[in-house]
């Protein structure tokens, strides 16, 4: 159940003067979540007060208005967060994040190893590292796609990292970080399906998760019957049971489904580009709830990782077909 924690009343965004650190760090490996990982992350991330280059590989996502923002100021040293959202988090002692538990490769809870694994998880550990000098100072809350904006609006979590596409529409009301991954919306069908594109699905049922951009996209195809489900994996159940003819979601998520059911295929046709950003604030509450300082900080951390080649290494590692997302440490 989504939390009872009382809403945090954050002080007004302090004017941050962040000198962005440039990272001359060679990051070797990205195993996070273990002791070895912790040491690696410590070594990799705690290099303050250097100058950081602007983001290069993170693409500009929204063709209309949403684009990556430039990072302002310097990145503060771990455990010395400036007043504002960051200091509140530091005082609390741990970061509270909203994630999914069922998206192989992005964010997956493995009951056998009793740990979260995936690209988003590694990025969150890196953020915790940058704040606390401790990659494990994180409390995970498992949320549904449909709850992503609510948990930020209600101040239940600091950051949502849950395969959330930055769209112009969402950008009107929510505060995103820069994109940490760009994927595309695709279709997954049974291997024996003769369907080759969305046009072949007229009059058929297509599964998508409630609250996702993918299900909104289906509005553009009125002849396709949407089959909405609450949890992403419910779509795979529906496909395996023959209740739907296809699943539409982001490529990364579909890849996770394919990991679990090799008798499926992802159709090459792309419906939409999907730049993933982390959600940190919301706009209706005024600047108080925007947490621009946190957004700026996370952007800085992402830029560091990117500059060090770490971000693309993580992406390549987690999304490589050969990677077993259940056991991999990237």
């Amino acid at each position: 159940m989504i939390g009872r924690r009382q809403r945090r009343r954050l002080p007004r965004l302090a004017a941050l003067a962040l000198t962005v650190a440039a990272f001359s760090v060679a990051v070797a490996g990205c195993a996070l979540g273990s002791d070895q990982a912790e040491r690696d992350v410590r070594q990799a991330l705690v290099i303050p007060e250097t100058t950081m280059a602007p983001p290069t590989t993170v693409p500009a996502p929204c063709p209309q208005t949403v684009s990556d923002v430039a990072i302002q100021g310097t990145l503060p040293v771990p455990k010395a967060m400036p007043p504002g959202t960051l200091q509140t988090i530091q005082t609390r002692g741990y970061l509270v994040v909203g994630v999914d538990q069922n998206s192989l490769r992005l964010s997956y809870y493995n009951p056998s190893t009793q740990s979260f694994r995936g690209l988003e998880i590694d990025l969150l550990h890196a953020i915790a590292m940058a704040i606390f000098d401790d990659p494990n100072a994180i409390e995970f809350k498992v949320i549904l796609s449909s709850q992503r904006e609510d948990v930020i609006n209600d101040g239940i979590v600091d950051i949502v990292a849950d395969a959330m596409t930055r769209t112009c529409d969402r950008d009107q009301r929510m505060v995103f970080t820069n994109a940490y991954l760009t994927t595309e919306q695709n279709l997954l069908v049974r291997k024996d399906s003769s369907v080759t594109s969305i046009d072949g699905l007229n009059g058929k049922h297509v599964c998508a998760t409630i609250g996702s951009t993918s299900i909104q996209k289906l509005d553009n195809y009125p002849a396709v019957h949407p089959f909405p489900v609450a949890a992403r994996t419910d779509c795979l159940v529906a496909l395996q049971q023959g209740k739907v003819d296809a699943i539409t979601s982001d490529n990364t998520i579909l890849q996770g489904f394919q990991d679990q059911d090799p008798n499926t295929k992802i159709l090459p046709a792309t419906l939409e580009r999907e730049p993933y950003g982390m959600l940190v604030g919301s706009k209706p509450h005024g600047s108080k709830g925007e947490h621009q300082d946190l957004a700026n900080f996370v952007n800085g951390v992402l830029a560091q990782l990117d500059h060090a080649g770490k971000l693309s290494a993580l992406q390549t590692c987690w999304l490589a077909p050969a990677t077993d997302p259940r056991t991999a440490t990237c």
Partner: protein
Amino acid sequence: MTTATSARSTAVGRARLRSVWQWPTTTPGRLSAASFVLVLATVAFGAAATGEAAARRHGADEVASGAEPLLVEATGVYSSLSDADATATTTFLTGGLEPHDRTQRYLDDVRTASGRVAALSQEVGSSPHARDAIQAIAEKLPIYTGLIETARADNAQGFPVGAAYLRDASTMMQDEILPRALVLYETEASRLDDAYRAGTSTGASAIVVATGLALLALLLAVQVYLARHTHRLVNVPLLAATVVVIAAVTWVLVGFGLERRDLADAQRSGSDSVQLLSAARINALHAESSGNLVLVARGRDVADQAAADAALVKVGGSDGRGGLLGEARAVAERTGSTSGIDALMADLRTYLTLHAQIKQDESDGNFNGTTVPVTPGAVERAVGDRAVGNRAGRCEPPDCQAAVADQVDAGFQREIAAAQGRFDRSASTATSALARAWLAVPLAALLAAILVAYGLQLRIKEYR
């Protein structure tokens, strides 16, 4: 001579014919009529009393060996199905390798449920609702087990879709299968109600008393008439018949009374307790399934949490002392010892405390104290800064909740078995209360009829 003889015989014939016509006006005629009416009344009484005794005995029999065992079967279908679901979800929560005994318990539950459904299908023939319900359960149970097996296979490989299958299966159990099992339960419960009513109806006794009293009044009237119109004060056979009828009426009434008392006992201290405790157990199992689903979904399903809470309130009220268990305890208090239920209530309160804690952890996003550690950092925080939710000191996290739930369920089963024992004892006394009356009453009525006919024949003869 010949003419005289023939004339006399004609006269006798006429006299006989006249006497037939004039029966009620002459004393022997009246006596013959009285004899006829009395024998008829005795036979009527015998038939009525025997019929009622048979009906009552059948009612008691139906309660003891028909309706109640069937209700137990129907309750068993429900509880083994919901135990299967609770066990499957618990097994899932432990993650990784499935504990063998849990898997076995799930399989046993499914086997028991299908066996009971098969047994019931031959007994419920008359009720179309029950027939439909049985068919639906028989159709859906294999689909349910298929979903569970898929969930297990996926889970064994660490595939998150397993949780989705488990949710799908459990939803099917809760929304489609258990409601049908409830129909079976309700059908059998109303059958038991009918049987209790048939076994304890006062209308039956009233009819027997009325016919008995009418017969006695007739007997008395005839004897008074005889005393006035003949020289004998007492007609011994008639008096004997009166005594026999009084004895028969008394026997039947006492038998009815005893049977009624024993049946009421069986109901109050036995089957009522069985029903209350079974309903409580079923709700507790439902709460466990729903609670497990919340944990499987890790925080996402508010509806399941609410269902678990509501079911637990039904079981033990808000504090673990009320609800169905509270009622069962009140019954136990009236009829005997409450120690067993008190022990069960204590276990339930432990469970409730745990449940509240799990809920708190759940809303705090801390799963480590309840089922599975999330990250080492979270565990430290649970112990340190926030001091919530870590029960590691009290019991081992993966088995903690399951262990207490098992203990509660074992308590339920123990108390249900005890109540069933009380029922069996009272019900068997109830059926034996009328066992002899069933044969003795018609014999007594026959004897009384013979005595009446003989006693009056003695007087009638005197007029020939």
